[in-house]
């Protein structure tokens, strides 16, 4: 602005302002200021950021993300102003934040950026001194608020002695957290109480945000409708103490866990010096109070002594098992309740405690869980409702059911068992003879895998590195049939060869013998020796067949000759010629007188012709 005025004197400025537009918005002025620069801890300050420019159309709220060490209680509240002075316009906008410092000492509000017309302006950093509580009186008084706001009713408390101080009652209000134990086991209960100590009247209070407890499983402990009030003495001062909230916390993992701070906004009665104000209004003041975080050491459950059937529950429990009757028939339903009660959290217990029973069919149980509080201690109850169906008659016993939990007081695992329950089971209807219960079958499941057990080799050890098929005996056995077959083949061939040669010799001899016999017959060809002639011819014929076919000549009948000839493929006319010759000879032998020399010559010629013909056919 100064630059502008210096550069353009007089009426020029008006023209320029009218024609200004974006180019002149360069000259925005941004400043930040606090209402006070010295406060007590727990008090609030107001940070205002003023933006002055020719036009504020394009001014963004300040960026307060760099503001550290302060809680922003409210804000921003915005107020704008527009001025036309001597034909010169100016606009300003103020953003206000109510802040509460987190700590004490000298704090700095850093340079904050403001974006105006696309340019970022920075405020100057501001230093603030925060004194420990109660050391200075705040001159700051917020505007009174008429009437108490709705909320939890607070019994009116008489101001404790020593609270007759004028203003700044906030210093006499504090919120703190109490835990009943700082070192617990995983799953063990920590009871946390959020307390408000005050020396003035509390008109209203509200949680700034919902408390969360990371690392814990939190259960709310209900408080009575009217808050408990008691007087406590802290140091020299006497306070009225309200219990604002109670939580039962169960750590879920071991290690250092923190109960985070909780912030309350408390509306307190303020004493006013103005009698009219005190009479007609209730002067109030809203202060913000934050508790300190609490560290809880969470111990893991001892792992080395953990029994195999550990249920996961931590606390102190009792179990009971009850059947709705002690006498039943086979296939009747029996209701069995298994109940675990005690101090501690049972939510982690999910496994069905009743094992599979041989002589009962078991249905999936109905599980009921309930919790209660007894003297701020969380108690759990879990009931499994089973329906059992006895499958066999006789006295059946439900064995004791064990429940193992960790007892943090004894620092040890404990197992409690129910009493065994005996049930007299009678035969079912129509149960003559042994009852055949309907057995529900289930697959056999592999639970775990392990290597098969050792080989014991009771019969002694042996060297397997040379199996039988690599031994020389095996080779010998392989070669044996080959050798035997070769031998047999050789033998058979030799035998066949000798047989064949005998046959050939006989065949050759057959012709020779037949010719010899025919020659002999020719010599006897005279009527005196007719009988001998015909005998020789017949012998030549039969002997030929016998020799030729390797058959003995003695047993050769006509029929056998016919067979042999037919088998060796002699044609029909040759066979009949042969038989005619033979028959003629036989006839002439028994009636020799009837044949003359002509007949003899004819018979000889016929025999020769037959033999030659046969020889030719059989050799072909």
């Amino acid at each position, binding site marked *: 602005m100064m630059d502008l005025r210096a550069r353009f004197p007089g009426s020029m400025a008006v023209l320029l302002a009218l024609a200004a537009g974006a180019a002149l918005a360069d000259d925005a002025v941004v400043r930040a200021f606090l209402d006070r620069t010295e406060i007590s801890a727990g008090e609030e300050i107001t940070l205002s950021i003023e933006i002055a420019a020719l036009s504020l159309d394009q001014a963004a709220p300040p960026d307060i993300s760099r503001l550290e060490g302060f809680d922003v209680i409210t804000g921003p509240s915005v107020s704008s102003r527009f001025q036309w002075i001597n034909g010169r316009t100016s606009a300003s906008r103020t953003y206000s934040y109510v802040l509460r410092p987190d700590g004490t000492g000298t704090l700095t509000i850093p340079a904050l950026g403001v974006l105006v017309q696309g340019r970022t302006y920075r405020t100057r950093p501001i230093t603030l001194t925060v004194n420990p509580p109660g050391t200075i009186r705040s001159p700051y008084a917020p505007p009174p608020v008429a009437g108490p706001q709705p909320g939890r009713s607070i019994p009116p408390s008489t101001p404790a002695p020593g609270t007759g101080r004028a203003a700044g009652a906030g210093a006499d209000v504090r919120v703190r957290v109490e835990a009943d134990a700082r070192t617990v086991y995983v799953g063990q209960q920590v009871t946390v109480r959020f307390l408000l100590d005050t020396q003035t009247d509390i008109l209203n209070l509200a949680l700034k945000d919902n408390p969360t407890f990371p690392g814990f499983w939190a259960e709310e402990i209900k408080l009575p409708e009217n808050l408990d009030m008691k007087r406590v003495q802290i140091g020299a001062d006497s306070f009225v103490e309200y219990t604002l909230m109670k939580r039962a916390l169960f750590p879920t993992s071991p290690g250092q866990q923190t109960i985070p701070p909780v912030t309350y906004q408390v509306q307190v009665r303020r004493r006013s010096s103005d009698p009219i104000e005190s009479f007609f209004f209730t002067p109030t003041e809203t202060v913000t109070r934050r508790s300190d975080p609490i560290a809880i050491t969470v111990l893991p459950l001892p792992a080395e002594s953990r029994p195999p059937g550990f249920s996961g529950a931590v606390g102190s429990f009792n179990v009971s098992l009850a059947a709705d009757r002690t006498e039943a028939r086979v296939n009747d339903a029996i209701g069995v309740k298994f109940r675990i009660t005690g101090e501690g959290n049972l939510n982690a217990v999910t496994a069905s405690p009743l094992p599979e029973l041989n002589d009962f069919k078991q249905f999936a149980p109905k599980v009921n869980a309930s919790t209660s509080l007894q003297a701020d201690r969380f108690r759990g109850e879990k009931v499994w409702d089973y329906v059992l169906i006895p499958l066999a008659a006789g006295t059946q016993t439900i064995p004791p059911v064990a429940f193992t939990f960790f007892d943090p007081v004894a620092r040890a695992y404990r197992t409690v068992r129910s009493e065994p329950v005996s049930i007299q089971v009678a035969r079912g209807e129509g149960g003559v003879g042994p009852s055949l219960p309907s057995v529900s079958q289930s697959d056999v499941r592999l639970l775990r895998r392990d*290597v098969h057990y050792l*080989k014991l080799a009771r019969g002694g*050890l042996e060297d397997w*590195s040379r199996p039988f098929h690599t031994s020389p005996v095996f080779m010998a*056995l392989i070669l*044996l049939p080959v050798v*035997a077959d070769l*031998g047999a083949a050789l*033998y*058979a061939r030799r035998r066949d060869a000798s047989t064949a040669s005998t046959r050939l010799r006989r065949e050759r001899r057959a012709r020779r013998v037949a010719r010899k016999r025919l020659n002999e017959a020719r010599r006897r060809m005279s009527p005196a020796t007719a009988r001998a002639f015909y005998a020789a011819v017949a012998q030549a014929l039969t002997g030929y067949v016998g020799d030729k076919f390797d058959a003995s000549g003695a047993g050769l009948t006509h029929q056998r000759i016919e067979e042999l000839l037919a088998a060796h493929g002699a044609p029909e006319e040759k066979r009949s010629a042969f038989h005619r010759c033979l028959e003629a000879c036989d006839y002439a032998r028994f009636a020799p007188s009837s044949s003359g020399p002509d007949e003899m010559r004819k018979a000889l010629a016929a025999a020769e012709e037959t033999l030659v013909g046969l020889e030719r056919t059989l050799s072909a």
Partner: protein
Amino acid sequence: MRTRAAGGGWRGVIVPGWVACALWVLLCAAAPGAAAAATPAEIFSRANDAYEAEKYEEAASGYARILNYGLLDPRVYYNLGNCYFKLGRLGAAILNYERALKLNPSDRETRDNIDLARGQIRDRVAETEVQYPIRALKRMLDAITFNAMTFAFLVFYQAAGGLVVVMLLARAAPRRRALGYGALAAGLCAALLAGALAYKVHDAATPLAIVMQDKADVRSGPAEDNTVLFTVHEGTIVEVHNHLEGWYQVSLPNALSGWIPEVAVEKV
């Protein structure tokens, strides 16, 4: 001259060594009641007891001693494998199971244990899927011992040979024909069984090796400066193809192959 002198020196060393050996043998034989005098069967049952008492190291050394005697019983290898399994040394366990299997491929329990141990090693190698009938046939063949297979083969083989002999000696043609068919049938059976036996022998003779180091690089060639193709971990079974100056050429069932240092693996 020089060589002769060296030769003389060599012999001079050898003789005392031989004498020492003889002395040692004598001492061993002469020490009565000493632990060293135990028979393999005694060592075996003692090792079994140690295993039972969960002293797996002691049991393993007992089994190893039996094997050092040259008594190569697959059951000893199997038990040794169990010891190493319990000690968590999966590579050594698989090695010994494989050695047991090589001697006796028909043992179901050994195969189960190998499967269990291989399910716990780092590497999972997808094997090529075998079709059902072949898989069933393989399982059947695997379930038969060497000697049973050899015996069955010999029965048919000898029968075929005998029938051929009888056929050759027979004179009548119809009988010869019947005997010929019989010999042919027996011969076919013998041929099938011979094939099965050959398969088993071949299968057992496949040179396998087990990776014994936690981690070993498989390279593209038999030297350190070759590219690392892939990495295998303890217990992985590889097939050995070649050997060259301290390196094995190996392949995995999924056809990956490369060269691995000799020291990283142990042959089955």
